[in-house]
């Protein structure tokens, strides 16, 4: 419903703009309007990459060039229709987008930013120096423009085409960003490890973001080349890359209207200062710095802070229901760990550890600090890969599988040091948990198909139910990072439950809770377990461990020293020794040289 209304508004605005531009007779103003559209296209895609996925691309000029030169070569050297050339240019630049996303598999942060910068420079040098193909500073003449009924587009028609493309891009990206994909991109910006652990395919999401930015930028380049009917190496400069980045940063990264604000304001400024290139240049540098200091949210951030936060619609708090029943209910072994070993040089947080988890039971993993408990959880979830041994989950070998696949198979987890997506709302955090259970693919989301909206509604309902279960409905719309510590722990629990796990791994769920809260947590865990979820928790609160677990595993220095029923483990002499140490006669103390460091 909301989407439909928004679609009509966008169409109406586009029609008004088309009407208004048809009254403008001045070619110079039409040119500015056309460049606004071109820069909006660049910025809209770049916003997905910078504002949502949080990746810094400093080489967009290279992608602009990919689109522009693709269309130039296709229309001057072949006979194909200019419209098909335009579409092909988008495909070509999309392919380049994949190319620059490849390094993101191995490197991140500043390295990746530098790689994108290098990409831009390499393309700039290539089009300037490989004159046989790209014509260098001479450029390529005679690019065939788009035609309408056999006639090349007029200046005003170019603007109309630009407006239509901008409106389409806006609507498509809005569909994409308002649901599953937008959330996934924001989550990987916040914390890649947590993102993977709720089932987001981090690398794939990054590639999608790079490709979206590349395609829109390539489209922009192709439009410029076809409108000018000429392209040369002077178009492709590092300054263009900076300008495209600035469009997003100045307009408001992560805001759907930021690119519009950025494109409109900066294109006008650019045109006004065109006579003084060094002033123009200075201003961009200054704005880059200034925007970071005084308006980190860009123009849109300023506007929304002036007008205050819009009231978000309030959702009905859902009655606290029991968590959903789990698939594959019944007894038997859910997880089998066999001879798992992990060594960091001489430090061995796991040495030949084997144990089994029974379906529907609550298991506890205990041991003194440094016993290798968190390492074990990380190995089970795929964050850390064991040096040796095998882990079977529901009969499938999972060692070496990526984190998101293991999550998808039904393993949910919380972290010892909370890893929530702090800037996202509590509800979004929990909805992210259901990422792998949503069935809408990239295309369905992009086109805003009804199936995608249904999935979104179902997910929201599930998330609200889970928030009811952990008693957090009233804070559903607050940013997760602003909640007190104890509540944040519960958000993480709800997020892990939203992945619909068969096995729930809890890394110190009661850390920092007072005795009442710990007791309440215990009751909650029993309820969760009763719905068929198997639980493995690492915990130091012995009263909690002893009162609710069915089975306890004890680690010490990476070695399993005991396991069994809580009461048995409690009296096991090796466990007592590990926790308390034993008084031994001086004569049997090992010599200092033999004691482990």
């Amino acid at each position: 419903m909301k989407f439909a209304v928004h679609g009509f508004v966008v169409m109406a605005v586009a029609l008004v703009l088309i009407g208004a531009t048809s009254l403008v007779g001045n070619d110079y103003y039409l040119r500015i309007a056309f460049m606004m559209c071109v820069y909006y296209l660049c910025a809209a895609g770049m916003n997905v990459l910078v504002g949502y996925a949080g990746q810094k691309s400093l080489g967009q000029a290279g992608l602009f060039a990919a689109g522009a030169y693709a269309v130039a070569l296709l229309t001057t050297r072949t006979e194909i229709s200019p419209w098909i050339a335009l579409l092909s240019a988008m495909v070509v630049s999309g392919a380049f987008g994949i190319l620059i996303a490849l390094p993101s598999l191995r490197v991140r942060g500043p390295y990746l930013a530098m790689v994108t910068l290098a990409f831009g420079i390499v393309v700039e040098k290539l089009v300037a120096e490989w004159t046989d193909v790209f014509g260098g500073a001479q450029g390529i003449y005679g690019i065939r423009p788009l035609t309408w009924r056999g006639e090349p587009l007029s200046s005003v028609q170019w603007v109309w085409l630009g407006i239509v493309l901008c409106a389409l891009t806006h609507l498509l990206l809005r569909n994409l960003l308002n649901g599953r994909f937008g959330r996934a991109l924001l989550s990987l910006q916040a914390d890649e490890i947590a993102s993977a652990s709720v089932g987001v395919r981090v690398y794939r999401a990054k590639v999608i973001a790079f490709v979206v930015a590349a395609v829109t930028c390539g489209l922009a380049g192709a439009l410029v080349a076809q409108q000018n009917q000429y392209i040369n190496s002077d178009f492709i400069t590092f300054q263009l890359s900076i300008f495209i980045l600035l469009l997003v940063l100045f307009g408001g990264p992560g805001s759907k209207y930021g690119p519009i604000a950025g494109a409109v304001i900066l294109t006008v400024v650019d045109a006004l200062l065109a006579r003084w290139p060094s002033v123009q240049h200075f201003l961009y540098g200054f704005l880059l710095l200034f925007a970071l200091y005084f308006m980190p949210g860009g123009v849109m951030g300023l506007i929304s802070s002036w007008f205050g936060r819009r009231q978000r619609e309030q959702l009905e708090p859902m009655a606290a229901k029991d968590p959903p029943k789990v698939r594959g209910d019944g007894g038997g072994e859910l997880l089998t760990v066999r001879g798992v070993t992990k060594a960091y040089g001489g430090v061995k947080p796991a040495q030949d550890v084997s144990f089994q988890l029974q379906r529907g039971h609550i298991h506890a993993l205990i041991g003194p600090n440094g016993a290798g408990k968190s390492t074990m959880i990380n190995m089970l979830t795929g964050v850390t890969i064991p040096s040796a041994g095998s882990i079977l989950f529901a009969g499938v070998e999972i060692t070496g599988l990526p984190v998101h696949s293991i999550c998808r198979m039904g393993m949910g987890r919380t972290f010892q040091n909370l890893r929530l997506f702090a800037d996202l709302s509590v509800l979004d955090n929990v909805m992210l948990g259901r990422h792998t259970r949503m069935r809408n693919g990239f295309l369905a989301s992009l086109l805003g198909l009804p199936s995608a909206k249904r999935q979104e509604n179902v997910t929201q309902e599930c998330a609200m139910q889970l928030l009811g279960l952990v008693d957090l409905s009233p804070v559903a719309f607050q940013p997760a990072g602003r909640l007190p510590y104890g509540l944040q722990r519960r958000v993480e629990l709800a997020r892990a439950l939203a992945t619909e796990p068969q096995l729930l791994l809890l890394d110190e769920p009661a850390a920092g809770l007072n005795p009442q809260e710990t007791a309440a947590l215990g009751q909650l865990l029993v309820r969760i377990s009763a719905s068929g979820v198997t639980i493995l928790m690492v915990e130091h609160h012995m009263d909690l461990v002893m009162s609710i677990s069915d089975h306890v595993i004890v680690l010490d220095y990476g070695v399993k020293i005991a396991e069994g029923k809580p009461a048995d483990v409690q009296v096991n002499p090796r466990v007592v020794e590990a926790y308390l140490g034993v008084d031994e006669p001086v004569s049997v103390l090992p010599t200092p040289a033999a004691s482990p460091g």
Partner: protein
Amino acid sequence: MAQALLQAIISGLAVGGAYALVALGFSITFTTTRTLNFSHGEFVSAGAFIGLSVLFLVIGAPLTSTTFGDANPGTAGQLMALVAALGIMGLLGWLLYWIGVRPFAGRPGMAWVMSTLGFGVILQSIGLAIWGPKPVVVPAPVGDSVIRLFGIGVRPQELLILGVAVVVMVAFDRVMNRTMVGKAMRAVAADANVASLMGINTNAVMIGAFVISSALAGLSGFLLAPIAQASLFMGLAVGLKGFSGAMIGGLSNPRGCVVGGFALGILESLVNLWQAQWREVAVFVLVILVLAFRPTGLFGRRLAEKV
């Protein structure tokens, strides 16, 4: 053929020396502050132009001239220019730290990438306003006559760059490994919090890192100017190749960075013998390959994140 190869290797070593200085600069700020100066290339250009404006003043020309004509500033003038370039670049590094790095370092979102980039753009635009975009031919401090060695021609400036680069790097290595200042820097690199608990003034160390790194960038610009002509756009490529060298060698390892810088200079020079337009592509491909197989560089250490 052998002569051409030898010639290429010698000039590759010289340019590689400049890259190594830049790479070392990247490594210094990255290890101590976990940030990089994304306008390091502009700092290279700035070093060249500060040097040549002093040279202009020495020969009595106005600061804003764009040609030396036949005038030669002499050795004393060149030394003054060098000192000025190092000093002013050091100051710029200090300024960059306070404006562009300190407010954003350690915070999520890598805003420092944009702030350092913006600082460089400002610097470049000031340069453009004064000298314009045209390159300037700069007289070399050691003369422009070509020395003939084993049948190949070597420009004395190339040998000078090589010599200076090696001396600077050996000195840096000794300071880092043998002195208390070096120990403090390495301590901050390992863990700034613990270092400050041990009474090390981490802020001073970080400022020092930026000052040294910027001075090194200035030095390489100053030395390259007589070979490549001084241009406000010369720095971008030099900075990028310095960074590539640092990535190949491993950002966390200063010695590795130096090796990477030299290797890159030679590679580039050899590819240049064959096909000039593939120079940049070859460098880029090499970096991608290294990152694909050893993301932390050939000599870098792996950093594991604790979960």
